[in-house]
């Protein structure tokens, strides 16, 4: 690969004639690939995903199987990160925990994104009464203390599965994305090409999917990405205080919650620091990618 300086000079020299042949998407991809932090984020996230996918090949231990003969052991050649309070292998739990944390983060993000897209599109496209109603609803949900609401719902349901957990997160965190989608749709609504599309008889459905969503995709993708990082933190926090995915399913959050025992906190840092670092690194990587996407989709950042 060339050095960055070389790269810039080359781009500037072919600046004018070249740009005309590039679509906005190509320009965005180009800008994204120039962002080193974002690339580091992609590589790190990729490695973590690989670790999660190939967990069975990286360890022979079953992350759910307890062994009461081997409780709270320190690191050994067999259990390289020791065992937890029920004698489960910490390294296996770390790898399989990545699966759960990433799955929960990703599906909670997807679920929230779909609610946000539908409600935001309805509000922004149709305006008027529908808009008013949906906006008051977002105001209300935003005003509710998120954690309190989520905890109360989880407490009511009693038993938590990944599906329920994802749903609870999604129904308490859709308003931000709804507002973003609505905002961009409202401004698009006034544009002339929409009037044109309508004049030639395009249906609402077609206008939304062919014209609105592609034009608003930048901020939506950026916010969805950053949201996934938040979701991973929320999952770990709820699991930490004991209201998340229950044992024996391994998640990074409930691995760290073992450190609420002062004995493990004090004598077995190898048990709770790795999952914490796992969350930190994953969230950092996703945030880098999100910031990179934000710069890439922002046409103004091109002229820097």
């Amino acid at each position, binding site marked *: 690969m060339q050095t960055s300086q070389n790269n810039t000079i080359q781009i500037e020299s072919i600046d004018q004639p070249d740009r005309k042949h590039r679509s906005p998407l190509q320009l965005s991809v180009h800008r994204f690939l120039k962002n080193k932090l974002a690339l580091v984020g992609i590589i790190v996230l990729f490695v973590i995903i690989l670790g999660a996918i190939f967990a069975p090949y990286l360890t022979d231990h079953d992350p759910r199987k307890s062994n009461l003969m081997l409780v709270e052991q320190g690191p050994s050649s067999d259990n390289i990160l020791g065992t937890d309070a029920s004698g489960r292998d910490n390294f296996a739990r770390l790898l399989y925990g990545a699966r759960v944390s990433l799955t929960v983060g990703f599906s909670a993000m997807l679920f929230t994104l779909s609610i946000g897209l539908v409600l935001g599109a309805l509000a922004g496209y149709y305006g008027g009464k529908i808009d008013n109603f949906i906006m008051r609803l977002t*105001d209300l949900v935003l005003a509710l203390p998120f*954690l309190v*609401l989520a*905890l109360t719902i989880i407490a009511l349901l009693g038993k938590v599965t990944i599906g329920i957990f994802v749903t609870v997160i999604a129904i308490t965190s859709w308003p931000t994305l709804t507002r973003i989608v609505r905002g961009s749709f409202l401004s698009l609504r006034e544009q002339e090409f929409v009037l044109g599309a309508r004049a030639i008889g395009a249906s609402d459905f077609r206008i939304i999917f062919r014209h609105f969503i592609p034009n608003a995709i930048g901020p939506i993708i950026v916010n969805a990405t950053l949201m996934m990082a938040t979701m991973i933190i929320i999952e770990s926090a709820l699991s930490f205080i004991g209201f998340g995915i229950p044992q024996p399913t391994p998640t990074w959050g409930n691995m760290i919650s073992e450190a609420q025992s002062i004995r493990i906190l004090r004598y077995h840092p190898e048990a709770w620091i790795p999952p914490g670092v796992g969350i930190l690194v994953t969230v950092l990587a996703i945030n880098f990618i999100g910031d990179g996407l934000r710069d890439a989709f922002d046409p103004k950042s091109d002229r820097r």
Partner: protein
Amino acid sequence: MYQYIIRRILVFIPMLLALSIIVFGLAKAAPGDPLSGKIVDPNIDLAVYEQQREALGLNKSIPVQYFNWASSVARGDFGESIAYKGRSVQSLITERIVNTLYLGLVALGITLVVAIPIGIYSARNPYSPLDYGATTFGFFGLATPNFFFGLVAIYLLSINLGWFPAQGTTSSTGLSGFAEFKDRIHHMVLPGLTLGLAGTATYMRYMRSEVLDVLGSDYIRTAKAKGMSDRNVLYKHTLRNAMIPIITLMGFEFGALLSGAIITEQVFNFPGLGTLFLSSITNHDYPVIMAIALLLGVAILIGNLLADIFYSIVDPRIRYD
């Protein structure tokens, strides 16, 4: 402006009602009723049970029950706790809320004292070593779950170095006057830092971008061109304008601070509203759960209301439609 403020206050009222309905509805949806917690003896006479239900108004229709509940809440009566027998919900909450308020104030204090000066410095010296340091800190501060930061702080500063106590609000009850105050502050340092971490990162980033924005505006160039000193440009023009969004942010970040407090209190075993809330959930102590949920919700609503009103007062450009 007044029209906007009045309209904004009018919106506050239905929101308050909706909040109370949601809280009431969630508690109603819960399995069992306030009485099921009171049945200790399985041989209890069913007739007495029914009598008790009637006395508590649990056999009335749901809207009537809601109305009764809402009117006693409006008078400040949240009923009696189930887990702590014979104690009123108010007394439990007033005992704990002071600790949570102190914790929140310490965290907010740390946040503002650290974030604002560094944010200003970063904006005035962009791409300087300190700016890079602050940006790096910001990335890490936003990516670290606060409970993990709290545990690392306990592990390093409390267990290994012994500088700060790891839990509670006081070490002994025999202290008084200044010694007691010092002891309380000493206990507050780690939880305060933990709760303040995410906020510090957020405010720092905000402050930096706001000041950068203002510094690039025409009126700053005018002020400099007419020979105003850097000091005056900073204090009279830049900060006044850059602080507006920060103060608004404080209103909206209030909810995040409260949610963070619940988790932080759990890490430090800190006797505040958060730990009370979590233990009430475990004990199915619905009167306490409802009261705290309502209290936190109202606090957030008021935070948002004040932020909006403040914004409309200081920024005359805001649209009132």
